[in-house]
């Protein structure tokens, strides 16, 4: 079967792609000849990989990420690299050094982020499936805003080898697609053990989605319908949950008190990890050249000021500050306690219910430029970060519209029960389409 190739010439009016490959050879396999897009923070051998940052402009990875190796082995045609918030830092895909991606449903709005290019490429009909990454909602938010399906897998089910790290303890590579079946198929290709990722579980995914949720217990956390959640969005999601009840599930009200601290815990943790991870970008091994005649501090500072965008520098500074002498106990140590409390709350709720449901995002897609204040952008992640702090699987599936824009229903499950959240999403999708 060698010698097959597809031609990819999309009309990329949404700026979903940073790089496209016109002629793409592919082998046989489960995804033979299917066009798959890959987020630009996932290493692709021989294809430029920038994390949407000027500091990696021109960087061509000498190796494939584990998930990309698996895609190639499955016959997938990797047709391009998708736009994102620089290094994954954002909720809108406006923080790209190469211009924002537009929402295919309304080009005056953002696609969500940070995997906004992957979501727009799918919603805009350019590819059937794509890889994204989710550190605090970066798969689920754009899936919700663009009206597609996206899964953040259980932490450890998908290898992070070759993912350019932003916040290692939180992030996962995950599948995005037009349908739950596509997402499940892609998950089957990318999940499994990889010894090059020391946090990898040996838990392959071999599931086929099954409809049927009779007797399923669904927890409905009050915090997911509280202050800050747009009443129209809440109404659409409530109706979807009503549909799940009609299909045989029972709902149980519950509460996640640790949510009060979850967002701060998340932002302290991810900025601390970022300040360490992003130290490697100094213009020596890759990226724009550091002036080797200058002292190394001066040379690095120059490269990093020119190469990093504002939000990336902000997060590096926040993390450096939070970890600096005298502040570690106030910020990082407290954030880890809060993170543990989130895990405990989920464990308690999951001893009584099978899954937890709520909105993916508190609002519909923002207008371009609407979230210019960083803190107000951070606050919009409140419903997605708990799953990352706890390492649990969470999916976003389209469940209706508010003001003409898509709304996502989020289903979270016990650690390792990605199959169950897929089945619940599939049951819902089959019932409404």
């Amino acid at each position, binding site marked *: 079967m060698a010698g097959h190739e597809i031609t990819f010439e999309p009309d990329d009016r949404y700026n979903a792609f940073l790089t496209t490959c016109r002629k793409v050879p592919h082998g046989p396999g489960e995804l033979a000849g299917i066009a798959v897009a890959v987020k630009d923070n996932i290493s692709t051998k021989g294809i430029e990989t920038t994390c949407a940052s000027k500091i990696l402009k021109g960087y061509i990875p000498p190796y494939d990420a584990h998930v990309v190796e698996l895609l190639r082995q499955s016959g997938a045609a990797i047709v391009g690299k998708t736009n994102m918030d620089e290094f994954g830092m954002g909720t809108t895909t406006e923080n790209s050094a190469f211009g924002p991606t537009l929402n295919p449903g309304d080009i005056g709005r953002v696609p969500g982020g940070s995997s906004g290019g992957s979501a727009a490429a799918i919603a805009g009909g350019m590819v059937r499936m794509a890889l994204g990454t989710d550190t605090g909602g970066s798969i689920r938010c754009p899936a919700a805003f663009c009206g597609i399906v996206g899964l953040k897998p259980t932490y450890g089910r998908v290898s992070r080898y070759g993912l350019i790290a932003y916040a290692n303890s939180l992030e996962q590579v995950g599948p995005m697609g037009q349908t739950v079946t596509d997402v499940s198929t892609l998950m089957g290709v990318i999940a499994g053990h990889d010894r090059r990722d020391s946090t990898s579980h040996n838990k392959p995914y071999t599931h086929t989605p099954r409809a049927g949720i009779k007797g399923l217990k669904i927890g409905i956390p009050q915090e997911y319908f509280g202050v800050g959640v747009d009443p129209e969005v809440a109404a659409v999601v409530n109706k979807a949950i009503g549909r799940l009840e009609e299909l045989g599930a029972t709902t149980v009200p519950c509460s996640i008190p640790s949510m009060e601290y979850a967002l701060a815990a998340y932002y302290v943790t991810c900025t601390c990890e970022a300040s360490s991870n992003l130290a490697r970008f100094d213009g020596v091994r890759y990226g724009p*050249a550091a002036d080797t005649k200058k*002292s*190394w501090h001066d040379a*690095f500072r120059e490269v990093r*000021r020119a190469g990093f965008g504002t939000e990336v520098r902000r997060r590096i500074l926040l993390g450096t500050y939070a970890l600096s002498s005298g502040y570690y106990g106030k*910020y990082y140590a407290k954030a880890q*306690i809060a993170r543990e*409390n989130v895990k405990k709350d989920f464990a308690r709720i999951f001893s009584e219910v099978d899954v937890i449901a709520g909105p993916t995002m508190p609002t519909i897609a923002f207008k371009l430029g609407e979230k210019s*204040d*960083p803190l107000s952008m951070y606050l919009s992640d409140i419903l997605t970060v708990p799953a990352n702090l706890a390492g649990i699987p969470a999916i976003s599936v389209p469940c209706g519209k508010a003001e003409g824009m898509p709304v996502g229903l989020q289903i979270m499950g016990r650690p390792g029960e990605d199959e169950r959240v897929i089945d619940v999403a599939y049951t819902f999708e089959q019932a409404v389409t």
Partner: protein
Amino acid sequence: MATEQEVNHIAELADVSINTEELVPFTHQFNAILDYFDILDRVSGDTAVTRDLYNVMREDLVEPSLPQEDVLRNAPAQEDGFIKAPRVM
């Protein structure tokens, strides 16, 4: 509250520069975020414990790695098969 001088100092520690015209809005936003983080002062609970975690080790053996020319390909400055870096002293 972090002062503009402190923000500049942190930027120096992190080898990230802040332009003069950015400093005022940057410090303002920085403080708004730190104020929000203060909510963590109220967190109570056990010192973080790590459950279900164990170290993953392997034997310290040489394994196949990338050829030197592939590793050097992205380095902007090279000399005699080495990556050239700014002077440290």
